[in-house]
């Protein structure tokens, strides 16, 4: 009955959950910048959710440190389907400059499938908007694939 409405809405209201897996905070503040009046991601429906249960898109920043690995994996697991995992910046994709550190066990794709990577160190807010827009497309596809 509401199939069309739900399908249309799937891409219009993506809620983000942001996980910092040992990031230097550069990407994190860029993500926050996306929500500021200047870039105002809310006009595209983006909203930061307080808990993974509400999220559609999980944004991970930082190389996966040994401390954070279990937490990251568990948190991503706890997001209800359909969900999209987005890596923010180079670190979660490849560990970047922290590669080879004793305390880094990344990259993230060892543990979960990454849907979208946003490169940059840190990415420009515009690039983040691009990446999230791509993520919403994937969300819609995943919603469609369920049928």
């Amino acid at each position: 009955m509401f199939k069309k409405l739900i399908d249309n809405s799937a891409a219009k209201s993506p809620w983000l959950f942001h996980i910092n897996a040992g990031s230097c905070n550069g990407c994190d503040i860029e993500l926050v910048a996306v929500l500021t009046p200047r870039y105002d991601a809310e006009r595209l429906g983006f909203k930061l959710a307080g808990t993974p249960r509400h999220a559609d898109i999980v944004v991970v920043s930082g190389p996966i440190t040994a401390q954070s690995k279990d937490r990251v994996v568990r948190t991503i697991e706890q997001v209800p389907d359909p969900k999209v995992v987005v890596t923010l910046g180079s670190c979660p994709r490849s560990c970047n400059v922290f590669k080879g550190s004793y305390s880094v066990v990344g990259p993230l794709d060892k543990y979960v499938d990454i849907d979208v990577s946003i490169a940059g160190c840190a990415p420009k807010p515009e690039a983040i908007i691009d990446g999230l827009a791509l993520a919403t497309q994937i969300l819609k596809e995943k919603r469609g694939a369920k049928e």
Partner: protein
Amino acid sequence: MIPFLREAVSGLFSKPSTEGYPFVPKEAPAGYRGRIVFHADQCISCGMCERVCAGGAISTTSVETEEGQLITRKFFLGSCTFCNTCADFCVKHAIELTQDYHMVARCEDDLVVTGTYLKKKPVKKAPPAACGQAEEPAAEGPKPREDGLPVQDPAKCVYCTLCAKKCPAGALTVDRAAKTWTLDEDKCIACGTCHDVCPKKCIIM
């Protein structure tokens, strides 16, 4: 609270300060370091970029062909810190960081910048012995000199001129076109800088 109230009400009636980004294209500011562009034709395979890369984003693969080595240099943007060090170190300016910031990908391959070029086999001045040396470099390299001055291994050298540039005493002269490497022994202070900077490790001390 009152000033905030005034601000809020005035905000209500003024133009929003939001940029129209996804709908209006936007240029990055000048000097922004974004997507890497690799000019493969200028590369001389010195490998300096690979060595200085902090994120370990650059890798090289080579395939032997009849005409020479087919060298592919891969820049993985997903591991790049966009620090510009590779471009700075590239003596031939073959690496360039552009203002393009749209680095978003669904799969890893979209984040890879590659360039392939052919490194021809030396045809002219290369003596047969050198050819032999090139094939078995480990077997017969030049011996280190007893007086501690540097020695070049012509089989390995790509004549990048970096050693000449870095030499504090100006004792080295390298001619890339003629593929010559000469040492002014009087000037040389045997500091070892050329040995350290040589990307191909062809200077022996």
